[in-house]
């Protein structure tokens, strides 16, 4: 019985050390675990893959540094797929602090794929407004984004020549750390019938599945696991794939903690009941 009593009062720092160990060791040893793409992720990949060359894809950066490990790998995998298929990403930002992350990802992959700014892709930067902006883009994107992220008129770039509103985007991809995706679904999807794909932080992902079931979005990339699946589909394993072994082993450890914690709780409860009955 004493072991359970001790277990229920274990110093939390031992748990932190164990978690750190199961994250660090797989990153060093790099064990190969199977990563099988799920349907919601594959649906996005296939949709993008089948778009005609030259299609414009609106990418909304709605996350910040706190979500970088979950969102950045997907952003890079998606951009690689876009440039490989001659699709044209148009990036905009709803979360101010996400602007440098989006720019960093876009410039890195554009350089890797020899894409030309203003011709193959464009970065419109951050604008405030959320709902007003989302509804406004349905009329004319220039009402909000007359200039790009460097304050250069968007009309000076060939890519923007035929872009005016949602009708000119084959897909809207939202990379979401909070609840901004609800507004995209509500206004861009509900009002303007824009096709939407969402990459959500794992915390938000379960709340968005009902939009997938109702076909309001074409697919979901949920957290680092979803990003790893996308990297596998794109055939370019990167940070997300590297982290999946750590992810799996730490989940096993947490499951063990939950099981032991519950056993200890019930044993202790039983013991106290018996002692109280004496």
């Amino acid at each position, binding site marked *: 019985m004493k072991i359970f009593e001790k277990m229920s009062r274990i110093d939390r720092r031992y748990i932190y050390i164990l*978690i750190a160990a199961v994250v660090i060791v797989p990153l060093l040893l790099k064990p190969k675990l199977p990563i099988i793409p799920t349907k919601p992720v594959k649906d996005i990949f296939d949709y993008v893959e089948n778009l005609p060359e030259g299609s414009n894809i609106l990418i909304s950066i709605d996350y910040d540094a706190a*979500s970088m490990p979950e969102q950045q790998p997907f952003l890079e995998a998606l951009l690689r797929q876009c440039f490989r298929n001659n699709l044209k990403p148009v990036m905009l930002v709803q979360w101010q602090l996400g*602007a440098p992350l989006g720019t960093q990802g876009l410039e890195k992959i554009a350089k890797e794929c020899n894409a030309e700014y203003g011709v193959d892709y464009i970065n419109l930067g951050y*604008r405030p407004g959320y709902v007003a902006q989302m509804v406004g883009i349905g009329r004319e994107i220039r009402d909000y984004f007359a200039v790009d992220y460097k*304050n250069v008129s968007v009309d000076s770039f060939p890519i923007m020549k035929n872009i005016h509103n949602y009708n000119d985007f084959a897909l809207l991809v939202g990379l979401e750390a909070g609840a901004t995706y609800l507004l995209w679904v*509500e206004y861009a999807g509900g009002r303007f019938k824009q096709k939407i794909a969402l990459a959500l932080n794992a*915390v938000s992902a379960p709340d968005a599945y009902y939009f997938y079931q109702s076909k309001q979005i074409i697919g979901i990339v949920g957290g*680092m696991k979803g990003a790893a699946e996308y990297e596998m589909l794109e055939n370019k394993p990167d940070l997300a794939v590297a*982290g999946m072994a750590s*992810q799996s082993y730490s989940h096993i450890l947490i499951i063990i903690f939950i099981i032991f914690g519950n056993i200890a709780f019930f044993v202790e409860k039983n013991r106290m009941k018996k002692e109280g009955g004496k």
Partner: protein
Amino acid sequence: MATIIGIWIAAGLTLFIYSFLYKDNHFYKFAEHLYVGITAGYWLIYTWAYTIQPMLLDPIIKNKEFILIIPAFFGIIMLTRWFPSISWLSRWSIAFTVGIGAGLGVTGSIQGFILPQLRSTILPITGFDFATFNNLLIIFGVITTLVYFYFSKEHRGVLGQGAKIGMTFIMIAFGASFGYTVMARISLLIGRIYFLMFDWLGTIF
């Protein structure tokens, strides 16, 4: 060289923050305060560079779009909340914002949430395949969950049983959310440890 200095600063601040896991300390507090300060500064610069300048000042000065003085005025009187004697002025701006929000919200909710979700709950339940079973499960889950939130009658008898089943569905949803939350937090830890192991230690070894 600048990149290496940046990596060292980032690594140092990461370790400062993680030192809280041992116990609260001055290094953690320093990193926390620095983060809050930098975020506020960053926010201010972005608001100036991407909102006030391109959407207000430049159009007024360069394009003579004087109509923009009206929203600018409403924006400024929002700040009168700091001065009790004239704080009533801010209600005009708030009324404007609430009016737009409510107007957009009502139509947006109906078009974007209520109708599509209702439509996706009206599912075919004829047949003996897995899809039919899935549809039945969705319909059953929606009805029992709604029963759980029906508070106009005491949860007894059939209503009580329905509410209990509804609560089970809600608990399953919470379980899924908890699982995903664990995954999210571990992902963040992986991201930081990956940075420390390969980016930071990579500059040393």
